[in-house]
């Protein structure tokens, strides 16, 4: 968001953010964000915004969205738009529950990945081999996946005890959890002290280090791994080149169609893993509709994160955090003040950049949210549910010029087209 644009008009002005090293910049963001949270909690008289419970729930809610977003990343980086993530995720929940119920949770993960990848492969056949419009195929995948999983449920789960046409029997056990040694203990102790800022920071650390599922750890490791694979390996360069300029890539000997197949199938596997996560870490059961649009949300998180793994983690985190807050009804009022301060900070950035028009509209919005916070005692749950979607829309509206999708994303490519 704050990387300076390279246009001559702005490069002549000194931008204090552009001079900072990334490490310093993100540390600054982190401390500033924490400080805002602490202040809001002080004013609101709650400690739910940084409570360990909130943050561990936020982490659990973030991971499936992140996995769907990662899936979207591989697909779109190879040049195929994947609206079908939702359907692939649905397949992941069904197969995850089936294998989890039959053979244990890790088998659930494996079969969830396989189920998602299967639908990814179908999407690849339609879009890469037959060059069908990618959004059309994605929509069709969603319908097909939802329908066939419903059929399978009615055939396989209905006769079982606890199962039915819309749900599976409960799985026996969940994926194991762990506490990060030492850190978890210390953080929990300090979090209980009630010290301003320090206890709040510890609360977050405690939430993120206590009772973490091994699958969460595995999934999180995919973020740096994806960055390394896509930007530091030959394979990754080939995959990205298929999404940026397939014509040139093919002329240089890159097997473009095969790279797209890899991208889309992997995409399905990751979305399927996200679906399996919902079953083997969270719910312990398959229920129809349990993905609740997380595939679409993952897509939104990926675009929010500018087609970059770290960015999409941030996007998924915002969804996960506001979802966690919604589940703790008493803390949601503070979110208004949080938004007001967030927009006010953006306004300050705009002022420093001498972008007065943007600053003015941001000031108005910040004031409106502040007013809302002052004048009310409580926020309807629906508003909180809608918050991440509104934020995504706002980010897209305010930052589309800064977002850059792969150049050939969404364009069907036929072998030999470049010759």
């Amino acid at each position, binding site marked *: 968001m704050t990387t300076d644009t390279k246009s001559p008009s702005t490069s002549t002005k000194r931008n204090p953010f552009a001079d900072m090293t990334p490490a310093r910049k993100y540390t600054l963001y982190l401390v500033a964000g924490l400080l805002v949270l602490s202040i809001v909690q002080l004013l609101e008289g709650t400690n739910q915004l940084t409570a360990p419970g909130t943050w561990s729930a936020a982490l659990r809610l973030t991971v499936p969205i992140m996995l769907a977003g990662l899936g979207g990343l591989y697909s779109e980086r190879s040049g195929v738009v994947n609206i079908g993530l939702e359907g692939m995720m649905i397949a992941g929940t069904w197969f995850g529950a089936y294998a989890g119920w039959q053979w244990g949770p890790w088998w659930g993960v494996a079969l969830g990945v396989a189920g998602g990848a299967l639908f990814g492969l179908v999407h690849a056949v339609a879009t890469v081999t037959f060059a069908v419009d990618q959004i059309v195929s994605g929509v069709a995948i969603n*319908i097909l996946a939802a*329908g066939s999983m419903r059929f399978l449920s009615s055939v396989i789960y209905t006769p079982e005890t606890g199962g039915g046409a819309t749900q599976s029997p409960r799985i026996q056990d969940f994926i194991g959890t762990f506490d990060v040694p030492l850190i978890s203990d210390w953080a929990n102790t300090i979090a209980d002290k009630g010290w301003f800022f320090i206890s709040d920071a510890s609360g977050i650390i405690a939430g993120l280090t206590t009772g973490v599922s091994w699958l969460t750890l595995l999934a999180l490791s995919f973020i740096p791994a994806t960055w390394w694979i896509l930007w530091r390996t030959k394979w990754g360069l080939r995959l990205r080149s298929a999404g940026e300029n397939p014509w040139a890539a093919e002329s240089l000997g890159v097997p473009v169609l095969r790279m797209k197949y890899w991208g889309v199938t992997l995409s399905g596997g990751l979305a399927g893993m996200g679906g399996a996560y919902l079953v083997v870490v969270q719910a312990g059961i398959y229920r129809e509709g349990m993905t609740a649009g997380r595939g*679409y949300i993952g897509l939104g998180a990926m675009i929010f994160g500018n087609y970059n793994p770290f960015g999409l983690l941030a996007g998924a985190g915002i969804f996960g955090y506001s979802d966690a807050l919604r589940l703790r009804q008493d803390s949601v009022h503070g979110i208004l003040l949080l938004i007001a301060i967030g927009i006010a900070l953006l306004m300050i950035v705009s002022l420093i950049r001498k972008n007065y028009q943007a600053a003015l509209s941001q000031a108005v919005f910040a004031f409106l949210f502040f007013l809302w916070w002052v004048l009310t005692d409580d926020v309807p749950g629906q508003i909180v*549910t809608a918050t991440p*979607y509104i934020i995504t829309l706002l980010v*897209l509206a305010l930052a589309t010029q800064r977002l850059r999708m792969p150049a050939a994303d969404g364009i069907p490519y036929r072998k030999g087209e470049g010759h």
Partner: protein
Amino acid sequence: MKKFGLALLAPIIALAFAIGVAALALLAVGVSPVEAFGLMWDFGTTTTSIASIINRAIPLYISAVAVAIGFQMKMFNIGVEGQYLVAALFAGWVGGSIVVWAPLHIAIVIAVAVTVGALWAGIAGALKVTRGVNEVVATIMLNFIGFSVVGFFLGNFFAVDSGALNQSTPPLPESGQIPGLNWIFTTLGFTEPRGTELQGFLIVAILIGIGYYLLVWKTRFGFDLRASGANPGAARMSGVNPKKMILYTMLLSGGVAGMVGLSTMFGKLHAYTQDFPRGLGFAGIAVALLGRNGAIGMALGALLFGFMERSALILDLNGIPKEVVQIIQGVVVLAVVIAYEVVDRFIRARELKAANEATKAIGSNGQEVAA
């Protein structure tokens, strides 16, 4: 004419393929597909079923038209789902709060639904025009925001009894309901459907279909619309303002989408309720794909979906999983888009070959003349 036959070939192949897949699925669970499909056909062709099938097809058709308007210029309105729910909520609230002369009452409800649907879709249109936001992502986000908006307004402002298990807007008075059309069956000499009333909104749906056909293929706007979709650059050079086109298309698509829930509201529920039918927006996308954006094709697609949903009910009573129709629906949509693509490619290749041969013939003739 031959081309038309080829175009019809694609959906038939796709449907046959889908039924084949479903038959395999049924065989796998030990059910005779012949028996299952026979039951469906017998049950689905009674007059009661036909009324029910048409009732199911009405909202699907309107939803498909809304999607197709966007498709005509290569825009994807994935947000019909949110648009019709928000529109139906406001239309139901306004309709239940007034009592006026019946035709005016109905006109007001329709006008509210169209306006709200258009405005909701217009947000995505405005974002695309002013900020370059991709309409697919914007409409998806607006769907989710729409669900929240509906819950918020229904729970806090519009519900007659906010504590009720199934919250509902005030019911439409007599003047705001459209009477059924079951007399058509008796007039034509068929038995009257029992327990189902053919919904009067059918007439509006037919008008929407005719209006869509005339607008897209018989007006300047429709030509510009198709031109912008087929070749945006050329359309722009011929004086079409692409931004205006995007905004108008989105507003129009959203306006039609606003009417998706009205057949149920006028003819059955007489209010917006918490259990108002959902999923019609996504199903509409499937129907639009099936009918390839044609006014008649989409009607056939909607009736096909209606038939499958209705006739599946008999399967449950015979111990056959009725979810098999979901497989047919899913496979047919995916198969039909692939089939259309393959047939298109085949036609193009044949035209290219014919053109090549024609030019070769002329070339050789020319040489002979020169020699």
